[in-house]
């Protein structure tokens, strides 16, 4: 069942845009990242076309910074997850009993990936996941308690993605819970907010996929809880500790964003019929530039194309580029003026205010007058005070390479 419905003409247009560019294999992380900067048409079109943006970024001459995870983090994550699930999920059962009141002894832990000999295909794993889900939802007495390595299909922009939650708790008062196992630490009851937010967004993607699957099976989507169980390491140890998180807000964001992906008709309507991103060098830059971007500094941590868009945003306009490159707080202080040169011209009084700009022009002129009063006239290229220092004359790094080891 194709639920996002990029049909006929639109699918053709997207295919043409993509050409031979590789498509992206989505996972929960990349699906969660779709929610960033929803106002960006460029992102909208590229994501809808399913283009692997790292490849495009390379062609544009702005290779994305290393986007991978540290091998140390991956290793630790795997070890921690194995530990939580070891011995038929003893630890996990204890945690589920503590957090959800599940019966720790009832039901088996079923590993969807290793249930039978040989490595099952993706569709086999999906089928087993469906089966387990249906039986658990019907409350069959021999339904499993914990489903390990389930595989969930999710249509992202008309293409099938397979998502792999760490585990599902299947029999807690007739509901199913997504279990997300992360090796980051909860120290004295608090965790790194960034990692926590990212784990929550990912878990919401799983909940979304699982609820769709339930609906496909004719079940009430509410058999899938909108609370998830997050298992983390406690303090500095490998001991797991679990918390229950409400992901309804992230779930709504994910759902909205996935629905928008299929709504690219309007965006496509603005583009030339023959446009394709599958071209080399400067032509690729020109093609991508046809689709307007809404670059903000946050893109640097969310989008592979950010360096290209930043360069474009800095380079446009008469002087210094778009105000948005300096961050939302600067933009907020300028009351709707989008161009750096334009704002400075207002501040310097070299350009008259257009209708509607009178207030911000007055503010900028007063601000500039105060800056001049305090700092003297700021000449283009002027240096900040205190910078005219001699360059350090210390021995070159090479001669200091004999770094002393330890005390002494």
């Amino acid at each position, binding site marked *: 069942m194709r639920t996002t419905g990029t049909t006929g003409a639109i699918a053709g247009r997207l295919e043409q845009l993509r050409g031979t560019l590789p498509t992206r294999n989505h996972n929960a992380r990349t699906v969660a990242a779709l929610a960033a900067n929803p106002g960006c048409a460029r992102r909208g079109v590229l994501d809808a076309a399913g283009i692997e943006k790292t490849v495009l970024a390379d062609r544009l001459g702005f290779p994305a910074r290393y986007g991978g995870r*540290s091998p140390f983090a991956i290793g630790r994550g795997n070890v921690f997850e194995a530990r939580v699930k070891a011995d038929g999920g003893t630890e996990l059962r204890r945690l589920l009993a503590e957090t959800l009141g599940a019966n720790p002894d009832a039901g088996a832990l079923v590993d969807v990936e290793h249930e039978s000999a040989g490595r099952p295909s993706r569709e086999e794993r999906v089928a087993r996941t469906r089966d387990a889900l249906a039986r658990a939802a019907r409350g069959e007495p021999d339904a499993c308690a914990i489903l390990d390595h389930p595989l969930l299909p999710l249509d992202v922009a008309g293409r099938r993605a397979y998502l792999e939650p760490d585990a599902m708790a299947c029999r807690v008062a007739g509901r199913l819970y997504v279990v997300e196992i992360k090796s980051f630490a909860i120290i004295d009851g608090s965790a790194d907010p960034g990692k926590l937010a990212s784990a929550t967004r990912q878990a919401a993607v799983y909940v979304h996929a699982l609820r769709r699957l339930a609906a496909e099976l004719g079940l009430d989507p509410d058999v899938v809880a909108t609370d998830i169980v997050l298992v983390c*390491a406690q303090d500095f140890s490998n001991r797991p500790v679990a918390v229950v998180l409400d992901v309804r807000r992230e779930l709504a964001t994910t759902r909205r964003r996935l629905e928008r992906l299929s709504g690219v008709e309007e965006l496509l309507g603005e583009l030339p019929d023959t446009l394709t991103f599958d071209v080399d060098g400067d032509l690729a830059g020109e093609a991508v530039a046809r689709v307007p971007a809404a670059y903000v500094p946050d893109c640097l941590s969310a989008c592979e194309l950010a360096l290209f868009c930043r360069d474009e945003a800095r380079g446009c306009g008469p002087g210094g580029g778009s105000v948005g490159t300096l961050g939302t707080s600067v933009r907020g202080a300028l009351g709707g003026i989008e161009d750096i040169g334009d704002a400075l011209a207002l501040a310097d009084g070299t350009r008259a205010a257009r209708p509607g700009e009178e207030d911000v022009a007055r503010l900028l002129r007063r601000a500039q007058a105060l800056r001049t009063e305090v700092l003297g006239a700021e000449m283009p290229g002027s240096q900040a005070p205190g910078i005219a220092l001699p360059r350090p004359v210390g021995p070159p790094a090479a001669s200091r390479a004999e*770094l002393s080891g330890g005390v002494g």
Partner: protein
Amino acid sequence: MSAIAALGRLRAAATGAAQPAATVRHRHLSARPLVLVPYVLAGEAFAPLAVLVGTDRDRPHLLAVPQPRDRDRRFAHAAELGRLLLPYLGAFAAETETIERRGDDPYERSLDAPQVLVPTAGGVEYLRLLGRSTRFRRTDGEFAVAEEVPLLGRWSTWLADRAGVPGSSVLLAMTDLLTQAWVTGQSALEDGDLAALLAWIDPPAGQRGDRAARAVEGGPTAGPATDPAFDERLVPLIAAFDEAVAAERAEAAGAEARTDLGPRGRDAEQAIRDALAAELMPTWDRVWRGVELLGALPAGGSVAGRWEADRASYSFFAADLADPESRPQPRVPGAVSAAAQLATRERAQARLDAEQVRDDPLLMAAVRLAGEAFRGGLIAVDAERMVAEPGKKTARPRPMLTFATDDEPLFGPGTDLACVERPDAKARVLEAEPGRVVLELRGGMGGGKAPKPGSVPEVGEVLCWTSLIAEFRRGPDWPAVEDTPWTHGGPPPEPEPEVASDPDDDALEEWS
């Protein structure tokens, strides 16, 4: 963000050169700071990988953990770091001055205090976690660690706690110091990268800041989190080290088991150290270059006063450490100490806000733009004016001052103001209208029937008045811990037993 600061960013973006964000330096800069550049292993709650540390730019000490997941090596590293840091941290406690206090006993305050500089805010968090993971360790029993370890933990915790007090200067991130002084033409998010930030402020000769910043992006990171691409290179080096250690152990199996490294192990360790040194050194040099740049800025007038508070905190902490009864800082503070800590920070923030704008005309410009201050020339003085306040029998001197100003203060009548140029003077607004502000002078004139000579400004003086006034209020008297009110959980239970039975202790379980 004020339009003054926003304009600085715009100008920097347009010219490609950083612009001043302040006219003075608002933090104390020690004559002998200690620079600490830490790296931790990715994926672990807290596994130190390496630090570059030292007080001499030309003699950095590199401490590296060739296998950070090995608990023994981790605590040996903490002990080694302790042996380097503790002498520095303790060195300032001996020389003190006696400070008299009204209504309280005098106390000894050290003449100077340590200052630790880290590259980014992540370094502050590093010290907090270092403190949390070491201060409860025991120096005896089954999982004994070296005596430096828990001591270092308590010092690290003090530094990290103190860094949370606004205006404190004992533990500072270089990126914070630089962004206080200069504004770049990139976003605040990008300013978090020390390399790019410093390239904007101090580009190589003949280069524009914006281009220099772009050129250094993607280079070695300032940490403490490593670059995943660097980790890829580190994986085989650590594996080689593990192999070398295993091989040497196997060879020595017949003889007595060796714990120190043989030649092969040392070579493998050296390869790891070389890789880490190459990755850390650029940041080390940048932090010291930042120290130079900041040292060339004059310190704000109130910086020394805030440093006094750091010195007092240092002396109290050092004295507490010397007390055999004292215990490590708790994991989570109790209700009373949390409330006291919060009140301290709020007072420090109010004080910092008021003092910084007084010290710095550029920050004051933003306050003037916001209508909370004005600067103007005194055009009329009624020095003889006397007013009997409601409820008072005798009239007191209340000179009336009329200023002309281009600023547009949003003062209502009755607003109390303080003066930048005349710190003792206190005044109240009588009326404010475009171009003209009339004040009544109410304080700083002595207690006599007539104002003290020189205490009333004269026509022609240009003065800056602001409603941002730091009120130095005494904090409330906090209840004793055992009198914690029931609204706050009541008296806490007896302090937790010693760490032996601590379920958090990672000494009780293996590290994968």
